[in-house]
């Protein structure tokens, strides 16, 4: 049975509809991430699940029970807030046990729960401190501890890492992942950080303007995006979008990229990946989507069996990141980013031979921005 089911939920603020017919269902133990730019409705959806905002229409089921009109306290959920929202006048211990106290759990059990959670999150030495005496990372742990103490059916995380510095954010991300693997909890997690989404999720819902554009595993969302928005939102550096024309020669399809002052670049499209949608767009403008890692520098020793199409371009910017090098180079009328190995010795202005892995390239309709193939 689904641990959480959202059924055709819509939400209006005044005359504006911020959630439009949203439906999601996740199983017990699944990690769902709602991701999208600011104002896409992800936090509103989170508040609707929590019961902090009433929905305009639709239903929400937790563990099979319709909780649409139940107050937050009766939904068996716990939430970790962006600002942590620790009660300032209470010690860490009181913060963690407050929810249990409100539910009239006897004192010995409360104490046991606090010990268990403090042990799990390694915050035992902090139990008698006030929130104002804690660092950002410690507050974050306490906020999670408060959620974990009650052992609810569903955990809600509202951008929990966005107030931490970069290093701590990566550490806490790993920690959340470990906790999830260890406890097998059902988690709904809101973030605008696509790296968090990719690394943590079992299932990602990419949202925009109150719609869910795509719901799928990180792999699906990354490698098989439904449209240009999803493709561009997931991945860093983001996908390159190149204006092109779709052509056909017999059974062979090709993507022609108009290049100023040079001969047009023609990239053959793998025959196995031809779709029906493509045939309708023949001779029309399309958008070719290539991720930076779909490029690789040409290695002459391997060129005999190397796959992909060869192209030459002069590099404009070289950005070494340590683990690899990001190159900016012109392709057609745009400038694109390519990710190559750290040993690639190239300086700005030089011409470089690159292979493009067309087997992983993605084709979009230039007008609707929907995926063609």
């Amino acid at each position, binding site marked *: 049975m689904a641990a959480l089911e959202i059924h055709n939920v819509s939400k209006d603020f005044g005359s504006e509809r911020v959630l439009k017919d949203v439906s999601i269902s996740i199983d017990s133990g699944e990690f769902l991430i709602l991701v999208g730019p600011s104002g896409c409705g992800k936090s509103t959806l989170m508040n609707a699940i929590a019961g902090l905002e009433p929905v305009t229409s639709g239903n929400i089921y937790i563990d099979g029970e319709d909780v649409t009109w139940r107050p937050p*306290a009766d939904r068996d959920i716990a939430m970790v807030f962006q600002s942590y929202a620790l*009660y300032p006048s209470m010690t860490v211990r009181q913060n963690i046990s407050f*929810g249990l106290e*409100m*539910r009239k759990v006897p004192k010995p059990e409360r104490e046991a729960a606090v010990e268990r959670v403090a042990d799990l999150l390694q915050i035992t030495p902090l139990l008698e401190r006030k929130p104002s005496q804690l660092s950002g990372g410690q507050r974050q742990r306490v906020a999670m501890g408060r959620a974990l103490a009650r052992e609810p059916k569903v955990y809600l995380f509202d951008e929990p890492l966005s107030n931490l510095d970069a290093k701590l954010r990566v550490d806490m991300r790993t920690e959340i992942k470990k906790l999830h693997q260890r406890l097998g909890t059902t988690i709904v997690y809101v973030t605008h950080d696509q790296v968090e989404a990719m690394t943590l999720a079992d299932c990602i819902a990419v949202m925009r303007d109150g719609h869910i554009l795509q719901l799928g595993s990180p792999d699906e969302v990354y490698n098989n995006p439904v449209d240009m928005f999803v493709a561009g939102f997931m991945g860093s550096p983001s996908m390159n979008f190149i204006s092109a024309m779709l052509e056909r020669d017999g059974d062979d399809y090709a993507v022609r990229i108009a290049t100023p002052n040079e001969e047009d670049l023609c990239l053959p499209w793998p025959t196995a990946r031809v779709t029906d949608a493509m045939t309708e767009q023949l001779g029309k403008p399309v958008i070719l989507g290539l991720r930076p890692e779909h490029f690789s520098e040409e290695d002459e020793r391997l060129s005999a069996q190397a796959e992909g199409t060869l192209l030459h371009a002069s590099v404009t910017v070289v950005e070494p990141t340590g683990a690899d090098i990001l190159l900016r180079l012109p392709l057609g009328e745009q400038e694109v980013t390519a990710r190559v190995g750290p040993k690639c010795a190239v300086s700005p202005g030089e011409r470089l031979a690159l292979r493009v892995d067309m087997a992983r390239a993605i084709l979009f309709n230039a007008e609707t921005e929907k995926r063609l193939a």
Partner: protein
Amino acid sequence: MANVIRRQTLAARVSRLAVYSVLILAALFYLLPLAVMLMTSVKPLSEISAGTLLTLPQNPTLAPWTKAWGEACTGMRCDGVGGYFWNSFAIVIPAVLISTTIGALNGYALTKWRFKGSELVFALMLFGCFIPFQVVLLPMAQTLGWLGISSSRAGLVLVHVVFGIAFTTLFFRNFYVGIPNELVSAAKLDGAGFFRIFWRILLPVSTPIIVVSVIWQFTQIWNDFLFGVAFSAHNTQPVTVALNNLVNTSTGVREYNVDMAAAMIAALPTLVVYVLAGKYFVRGLTAGSVKG
């Protein structure tokens, strides 16, 4: 300004000296009325008629204070202002407590449990801060009559509570607006209700604004004269009204020393409150602007 780096030239020292001299003179000037009152209140009548305002008392005596407290005539009765002093407390304390409590609840509801029109309600309450006292004298007298509490202490408490709510609501609303709503959301998820959240989460962090509200209300209500004179009987008068009657009683010799002693007695509680809690007052007024 010890942390301003400046070379100690002669000119700088001279100008610093000038600044301090002016400030000290100004301070003395403002303290003078208080000094005169204090001195006069401990002089026998003979010294007052013989000397000037600024002559130091030759034979200081507390007789004017005891007379002002227990024997001086206020209108037809001659039992001092002592009884009225306690009257004032009996009116001020409940009025301050009730208006602060209601203001806190109003501020909490208006910021953390917003409802349709809550901004309008707040704007209307704010309007209450600007209503002149005189405007409500007659309708209030009528209302107190209907309620059967005219000329009673309870009536005066009610009047002051009604008038005070506008200010206390303003104080608490502006304070609570700075407290993150996520705290209330977290408490709701934890299972706490309206009053529990107020009591356990909001109230423990409200000390600065409670102090502001209490000092403000205490001073306002203690110093009130108009309501006191309009809605009291001879046995429920606050001390301000009694002081007025004492000074204006026109029989016999005018006893300036007793007048001054009575005025000091009437002013003392607000002075004490401000001296004890004044620094919290300033701190509390600015508390909203600093992240807690």
